[in-house]
């Protein structure tokens, strides 16, 4: 026995040992990926509804947890498998998802902003139309017709919206404004542009940051609301229709960009180093007069301290209205869920989407997430002061889709818009900015 282990005269390892080692090496290398596939195949035999989202924190995660609870009690044979990837606005999640879809390994349903952002998935044939779900569950009657027409692509629906957020909200601190001699705007009518600029001037004179802004995407968020407030919802929608380059070159767009240029003169110098929460907190702390952000800000302002929010009193510690020129316009965005082609448990996925579009799921999720249901029949009693206001507006307002949050422009166009904005923020050259936007429209519209 021992002699076999003893080294030969030559001091070299025996040939047979080497050969065996090499064979084992090859076997291990070949077996690793194979065993990986094996476990995957096994786990998909038992029914499990795998849902992919970027809801990992705050109200979103809490809302999702409530939905999962309801789902699991109703569907004990096909429990929920929560596949979340962290990262604000889903930037990391979308990268992971793209890899999974390309590898032919889709979840049963995945989150995506409703609207043009889904077009890449649709064009690549990665999602199925879900019109049949709308028909069977009567979503067409329950949700506003204008919403449904804005999320259709080539006449078909590809996702079920769970919630609606509003992007064009102007936030302010009433106490700060009064101290600076500024009359706070009324929620329903808001400021005109002239009143707003006058208020910014007063705030500047009082030593406040007139308009708090954060990193580049929040600058784009502000720009889209200024454009809607200048061009109106119809003019805005026309910019995203086919062959729209001449509209991008119009004097209306020029007016909007010049107005935006003026507003940037009232923003904080360190904008690029602030998150949206940092910028909102400047208003909450009384250091800034105004801030334009989506209505997830309401969740941040009024939510509990335990959840890293500010626990402010709505209406007293902070107020809101539509961005100037956009009263009566709902610059909307929506989280929605899809039916991927080749979903491992398609029947369960259809059931999940039917559940999500229903009143129970929407009224369970949204009060916690801090958004309103896409449906018109929400139970207003469940919602806080800001959301009650938003619910009322949602029923009467004209809808304008958000650019920054994926409704009006496909990914390529939205990215080019962002790059053009980044270049403009460095050069502050409005004419060059407009030329870049025209070029982007020429390429993408």
């Amino acid at each position, binding site marked *: 026995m021992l002699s076999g282990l003893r080294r030969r005269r030559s001091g070299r390892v025996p040939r047979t040992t080497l050969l065996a080692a*090499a064979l084992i090496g090859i076997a291990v290398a070949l077996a690793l990926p194979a065993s990986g596939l094996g476990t995957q195949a096994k786990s998909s035999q038992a029914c499990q509804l795998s849902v992919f989202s970027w809801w990992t924190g705050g109200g979103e995660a809490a809302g999702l947890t409530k939905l999962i609870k309801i789902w699991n009690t109703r569907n004990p044979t096909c429990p929920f498998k929560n596949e979340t990837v962290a990262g604000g606005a889903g930037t990391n999640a979308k990268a992971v998802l793209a890899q999974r879809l390309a590898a032919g390994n889709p979840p049963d349903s995945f989150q995506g902003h409703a609207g043009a952002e889904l077009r890449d998935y649709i064009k690549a044939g990665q999602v199925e139309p879900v019109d049949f779900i709308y028909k069977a569950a009567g979503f067409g009657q329950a949700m506003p017709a204008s919403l449904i027409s804005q999320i259709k692509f080539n006449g078909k629906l590809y996702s079920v919206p769970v919630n609606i957020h509003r992007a064009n909200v102007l936030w302010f601190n009433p106490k700060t404004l009064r101290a600076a001699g500024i009359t706070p705007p009324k929620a329903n009518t808001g400021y005109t542009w002239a009143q707003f600029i006058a208020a910014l001037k007063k705030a500047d004179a009082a030593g406040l940051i007139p308009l708090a802004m954060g990193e580049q995407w929040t600058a784009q968020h502000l720009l889209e609301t200024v454009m809607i407030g200048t061009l109106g919802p119809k003019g805005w929608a026309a910019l995203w229709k086919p062959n729209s380059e001449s509209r991008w070159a119009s004097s209306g767009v020029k007016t909007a960009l010049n107005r935006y240029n003026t507003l940037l003169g009232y923003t*904080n110098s360190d904008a690029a*180093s602030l998150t949206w929460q940092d910028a909102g907190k400047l208003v909450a702390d009384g250091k800034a007069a105004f801030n334009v952000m989506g209505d997830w800000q309401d969740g941040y302002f009024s939510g509990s301290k335990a959840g890293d929010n500010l626990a402010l009193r709505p209406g007293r510690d902070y107020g809101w209205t539509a961005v100037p020129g956009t009263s009566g316009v709902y610059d909307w965005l929506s989280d929605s869920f899809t039916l991927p082609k080749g979903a491992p448990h398609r029947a369960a996925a259809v059931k999940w989407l039917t559940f999500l579009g229903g009143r129970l799921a929407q009224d369970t999720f949204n009060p916690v997430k801090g958004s309103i249901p896409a449906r018109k029949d929400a139970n207003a009693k469940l919602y806080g002061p800001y959301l009650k206001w938003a619910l009322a507006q949602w029923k009467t307002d004209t809808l304008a889709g958000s650019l920054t949050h994926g409704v009006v422009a496909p990914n390529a166009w939205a990215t080019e818009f962002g790059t053009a904005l980044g270049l403009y923020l460095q050069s502050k050259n409005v004419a060059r900015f407009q030329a870049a936007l025209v070029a982007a429209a020429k390429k993408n519209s």
Partner: protein
Amino acid sequence: MRRIRRWGPGLLLVSPSILLVAVFVYGLIGWNVKVSLSDWRQAQKTSGFDTSAYRELFPSAELGQVGEFFRSIVTGRQSDTLTTDPAWVIDVRHALLFTVAFVAGALIVGASLAFLLDKGVKGEGFFRAVYLFPMAVSFIAAGVVWRWLMNPAPGDRSTGFNLLFDKLGLGFLRNEWYLGADWGASALAIPAIWALSGYIMALYLAGFRGVPEELREAARMDGASEWRVYRHVVFPHLRPVTLSALIILGHISIKVFDLIVAIGGKQLITQTPAVYMWILIYDARDYAKGAAIATLLLLGISVLVIPYLVYTVRSEREV
């Protein structure tokens, strides 16, 4: 048959690794180059040959355009006539600023630390560990801390260095750090210098110790001052160390991504080529252009690494 018996088992032993490297390194490099030369610029996959991605990254062959391209990189001013992607021009400028600041900074700081330790300090082991530790911190974690240290907020919202400068009465040193329009990208190199200079110190320290004490003694016997001992005896021995340090720093610099994203996020003001590549692939789904940038990054690194490999092979042969 005999010859096969001699090298066969060895080959068999390393063949899994050769196979894996062939597929997952060189195969994927080849695939990446193929994608960069395709018209896969939207969500749909097509297979046509197309050089449009590269044409957006290089100036056209006209002399005026080439001049404008380099002028724009050097001055940082956007050009109205240049047909090259203006964001890419800014990325290249950022990459150059970052590289110069990072490589020079880390080499100087690292070499100085090594020099001081080489002169004999009490508790050398302790200092060595202290200076080496930052390398153990990931760029993403370091970025979060340095984002706070290099906070450009004005007035009473200052934190980090700006606050420190104010407290010390050095208010004139306050600055915008990475938000500076012209030189901001070089401020992004400061955390990288902090992280890597300890490693460069370790390289140089090993280099210093590798110089035989007899040589130094001999020089001293001949009446050389301490400075001249270093200048004419020690430093010439350090050329291979400096070269290795340059390669290591250079390739980290060209592909820097996590540090930038942790400090600046996805914004043009701090964007580097690797960040733009990510945006193009995952946000815009412009796979060809993203792959083209990846290819250019690989070429940039090769420019550094291949001469180094040639040098190493040659000097090993001489030995």
